[in-house]
């Protein structure tokens, strides 16, 4: 191939490397090494996530933050492999002309999920506030009917919020429920009507479950020759992104999670994927169990909160002044647990939102960079 042949035509923009086979080989070698290293890192990071310490139970707030960090690290490496020193033209040829747009489509869906989840964290925060009211009521000594009533109201609202059917989180419904004070009804317990409207601030027909489902659609592991080239890390990144989004949706309340897929079509023989698949199966099992009972979501702190709140509601139901000493002690224990959870939430929810926000920005930036590269590759030369 004579370099001169290509001069003057737009094909001349093809990397000069094409003419230098020896150099090509070396570069290809380097690329393979980078890909292998990338996948090893992925494997290591997810392995670490699979064996959490006491403080970081799977799907706890701090664990989620770690998961998001893992995403950011993997993404940075991935971007470096794909884009650094890359001839833009290469990424516009098959199979990348299909793989890259698919990746970017999934990225957009991930962005919407980030927004929905950020919103969901707000509802967790709301639960925290309600729990704090209950705590301050039951922290009084001695506990009387007044305090118990107060706690019960807060806890009932809390439970209603937790078990809120994701679909009901629209403005219209809460308006009907809350403020219909035409005439005072005899019913003193205005619990269900008291909680704030929990509008999801997402599009009406948007469904987290459907979004996840559509990201999994068309996710096919590269085969044959492709499996040892760039398509491989692209596939890996896709899987990581989907997993992270899926875990967030499973943990944190957001709109319309019924029908959340529990199976990922990731081939087990991929060695970087072992820990990830293990985690996924574990979380999926939990999800299936929970799905039958209600939609609280799997966030560790929320599960604990639900348990304690339910126990305390039982306590308030059976309370009679001055109260049974043993029961009071038990209740105090639950209150302590609730206090601890609220403390964790107080410290951890804002950082969690910031992490999600960072992931959001990174995905936006990365998408822009990919689009820029693709544009360069497709610019016509007149």
């Amino acid at each position, binding site marked *: 191939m004579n370099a001169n042949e290509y001069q003057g035509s737009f094909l001349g923009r093809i990397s000069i490397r094409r003419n230098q086979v020896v150099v090509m080989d070396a570069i290809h070698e380097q690329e393979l090494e980078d890909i292998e290293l990338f996948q090893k890192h992925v494997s290591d990071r997810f392995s670490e996530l699979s064996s959490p310490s006491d403080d970081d139970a799977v799907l706890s707030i701090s664990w989620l933050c770690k998961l998001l960090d893992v995403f950011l690290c993997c993404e940075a490496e991935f971007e470096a492999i794909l884009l650094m020193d890359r001839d833009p033209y290469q990424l516009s040829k098959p199979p990348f002309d299909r793989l890259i747009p698919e990746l970017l489509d999934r990225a*957009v869906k991930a*962005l919407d999920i980030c*927004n929905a989840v950020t919103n969901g964290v*707000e509802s967790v925060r709301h639960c925290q506030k309600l729990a704090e*009211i209950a705590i301050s009521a039951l922290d009084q000594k001695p506990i009387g*009917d*007044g305090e118990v009533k107060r706690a019960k109201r807060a806890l009932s609202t809390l439970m209603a919020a937790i078990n809120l059917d994701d679909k009901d989180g629209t403005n219209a419904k809460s308006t009907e429920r809350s403020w219909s004070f035409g005439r005072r009804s005899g019913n003193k317990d205005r619990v269900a009507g008291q909680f704030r409207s929990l509008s999801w601030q997402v599009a009406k027909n948007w469904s987290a479950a459907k979004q996840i489902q559509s990201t999994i659609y068309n996710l096919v592991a590269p085969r044959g020759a492709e499996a040892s080239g760039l398509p491989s890390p692209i596939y890996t990144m896709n899987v990581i992104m989907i997993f992270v989004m899926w875990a967030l949706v499973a943990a944190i309340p957001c709109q319309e999670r019924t029908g959340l897929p529990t199976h990922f079509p990731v081939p087990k023989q991929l060695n970087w994927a072992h820990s990830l698949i293990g985690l996924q199966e574990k979380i999926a099992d939990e999800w299936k169990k929970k799905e039958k009972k209600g939609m609280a979501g799997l966030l560790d702190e929320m599960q604990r909160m639900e348990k304690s709140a339910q126990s305390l509601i039982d306590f308030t139901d059976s309370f009679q002044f001055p109260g049974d000493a043993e029961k009071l002690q038990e209740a105090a224990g639950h209150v302590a647990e609730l206090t601890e959870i609220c403390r964790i939430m107080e410290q951890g929810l804002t950082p969690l939102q910031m992490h999600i926000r960072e992931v959001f920005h990174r995905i*936006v930036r990365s998408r822009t960079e990919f689009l820029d590269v693709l544009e360069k590759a497709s610019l016509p030369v007149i």
Partner: protein
Amino acid sequence: MDGCQSTEGDLHVVAAAHHIVKALGATKNLTDDLRKILIDLDTHLSMITSDTDSKGGRGFVDVEEQLKQAERKILSWESDPMMIWDSGPREASEYIATVYEIQTLVDGLRRLSVHENREQKELLHRAMSVLQTAMSRLEEELIHILVQHRQQFEPKHMSSRSTRRDVVYDESFVSVEDETVKETSSRNCPSDEIGECIVDLVCADVIPDIKSIAKVMFTSNYGPEFCEAFIGVRKEALEQYSAVTEELSIEDVLKMEWTSMSSKMNKWTWSMKMIVQVYLASEKRFCDLVLGDFGSVSSFCFLEISKATILCLLNFGEAIAMGPHQPEKLFRLLDMYETLADLPQDIDTLFSEEASSFVRLQFHVLLERFGVSSTAAFEAFQVAISSNGSLYPFPGGGVHPLNKYVMNYIRMLPEYCNILNLLLKDQHVDVADQVTDPDNGPNLSLSTSCPMACHLRSITSSLESNLYRKSQLYKDEALQHIFLMNNIHYLVQKVKGSELRLFFGDEWIRKHNGKFQQHAKNYERATWSSVICFLKDDNPGSSSVSKSTFKEQCKGFRIAFEEVYKTQTSWCVPDPQLREDLRISTSLKVILAYRTFLGRNLAHIEDKCVKHTVEHVEKLLLDLFEGSPRSLRNSRRW
């Protein structure tokens, strides 16, 4: 008040004081505060006497009696279908006073060593229970007041900018008469300048009532419940109002087609201004009025009420900024950018606390992104001009659609002068067409040298290059010149007839006037020189030529003329004035030459060879550049 031994004398003083307090308490026209003080004092005095009598003497009975009375009052309201605050100010203040009474009782009971005395314990328990009932009721009342006395928030009329037509390029632009696009100078439209304006979101009359409820609830440590209810109602009110901007997912926004995206961007621009500058400013003031006495509670509540809505608005902005930056988006993007650029102070004021810093951050990030997007769209526009290629020459040589598109597009840019100058100031511009304006005053030179002006000149320069390339597609040199004449003339007219002239300057206009005039001359030369050639007088000295020469010349001229006629009647000079000027100029040359020629050869004029009279030629010339092809061959028109 611990159980210390009091002397007889002390007890008498206390009893006397107690008596006075009771007497005072019975008088009418007591303010809430004074009443509270007296109740307080009454209770404390009761405590003193009760303290000395550990068997629950007269003082203690007072406490129990007080509690019973208060309890009765509170519980009687529970079975009443009426809302307390609907029933009148006296009922309301009595209720509140009762609650304060209970509070004081509770405080007092707590201060005694309660765990030893079973009755005291029971009283405290009972008092707390009543208090809880009261607090629960107060919450209901609060919600009722907030809902009942909500004011309708009437948004002002939307600015006329939204009705401006979008400029999108397509070949059918040819059919659009751009003269009918009247640009209203809506920049100075008053409704554009909403500015900060505080309105009453809740009827101002009930604010004292809400405050009194707040005070009593906070004093009883029921602040969280107050906030829950308050935030709930206010948040819902805001969300009902801002339902104007429906929530859309990023995916939806990116897939949206242009016309609906454009209208949503408009809506957003207007909503953003309205919500931040008016609604949220008013809401903040309302929160301050109601909760100003409780420190950071006010800003906490405001943040909780407003954050979902403001974040939703900002998210839409982000989705737009993420989209592809096509040229037609530029004006909507600039609108949105300008809106955001107007608001940093408002945002910083509304969300000034540490806890709300994330709102400020997101806002500023978005502002920056919009700057980038707008610049990108502008660049895309410039690229679109230079890359617009044609395979075939534009029929008729008239004004090319690309020209119309570009000129109509840039005609709208001066409105965004300030913001564009800001965006473009660091951008290098390749201006082949440097303009020096030595004889212009200082003001104008600023206009013509600002970044936007430089870019404008670069744009027209690029357009001219493109038009030049397009002209090369014509085989006929004369048509090339007609084409360029038409198009440069159009360019100049557009600049002269709009605010663009301030940015291009007189020098540029002069220069370009010269250009199209030059093309006109070139056309004449290219077309008519060869035609008129036939009419030349080879022998100026002699009086006439031979008959055969004359015949030849006549024929030559006729054929050439008819050829030109056939060809150039299908050519187009859209501008009437230009057409007229060109005809006159052509006419002068041709007619003069012809008349002279005929005049010189009067002797040879016979019917057959002179087919056209001078007048006829004159008339035929009028048919040129009409755009409808005609032919004279085989026709006998006289």
